[in-house]
């Protein structure tokens, strides 16, 4: 199979349309299983009580907020390097969902922090760098809206996204570099997990749900963007009936 076949908007558009229901329904399925594990099977934490159940959504969305940024920067680099149309559109499609994940991570973190740490917010290294991530997403979206020419907007947003990627390792390693309020990682690639297996399972299933949701949302948005930006192109002229677009 030649993947480059799908690197143009006209061939990617129908493929994205076919993939959306698979990712969307999988997201819902994993979310149901994840919530069932998180609220039904996982026991009450002996230190945090029931408040710890917030981490199932907090950790999943916080991971996703960073990951989407890296993917957005990757598409931006492709767009800048090869000047391909679809890469700029993919970067554009990811920014709002990335901002949403960052917002949810900050919001749920605040509601977890209040009963657990005694404060909604602190200018802690991890929280501050995650807030900067939210502003970077807002910056990319605002810059996009400020430039009328799509290809120029691709380049400007691409540069901003690539400069901002330096923030990602800062968020990730902030809990090691600075000894402020936020605790260290709950899940590590190299060490044994510090939590019960069932809690870890709930967190991972929720992470998969958030993954699938983000892919579905980005694909839905990239299809809108393709329609908006390729309006004059010959191939979109073949898509005439609203239901079949």
């Amino acid at each position: 199979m030649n993947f480059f076949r799908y690197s143009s908007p006209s061939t990617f558009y129908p493929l994205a349309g076919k993939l959306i229901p698979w990712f969307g329904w999988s997201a819902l399925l994993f979310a149901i299983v994840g919530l069932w594990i998180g609220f039904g099977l996982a026991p009450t934490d002996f230190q945090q009580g029931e408040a710890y159940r917030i981490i199932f959504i907090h950790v999943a969305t916080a991971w996703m907020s960073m990951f989407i940024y890296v993917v957005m920067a990757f598409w931006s680099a492709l767009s800048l390097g090869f000047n391909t149309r679809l890469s700029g559109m993919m970067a554009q499609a990811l920014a709002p969902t990335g901002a949403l994940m960052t917002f949810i991570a900050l919001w749920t973190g605040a509601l977890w922090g209040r009963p657990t740490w005694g404060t909604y917010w602190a200018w802690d290294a991890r929280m501050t760098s995650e807030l900067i991530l939210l502003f970077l997403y807002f910056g990319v979206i605002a810059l996009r809206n400020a430039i009328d020419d799509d290809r120029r907007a691709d380049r400007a947003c691409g540069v901003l996204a690539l400069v901002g990627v330096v923030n990602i390792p800062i968020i990730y390693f902030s809990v090691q570099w600075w000894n402020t309020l936020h605790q260290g990682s709950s899940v590590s690639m190299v060490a044994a997990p510090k939590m019960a297996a069932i809690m870890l399972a709930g967190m991972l299933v929720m992470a998969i749900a958030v993954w699938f949701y983000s892919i579905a949302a980005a694909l839905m948005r990239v299809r809108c963007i393709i329609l908006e930006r390729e309006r004059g192109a010959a191939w979109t002229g073949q898509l005439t009936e609203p239901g079949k677009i």
Partner: protein
Amino acid sequence: MSEFFAMGGYGFYVWGAYGVTALAIMVELIALRARRMNAEEAHAEAAHR
């Protein structure tokens, strides 16, 4: 059942977190749907011209 919703006294925090998450996702999906309908309309207009 009410014990479940009370979340051991942490109901406000737990449901505040999950409720706003659900709301945010719904807002994104509604916005996507609106954007899609706008794009389709503009597209149909362009096709008929």
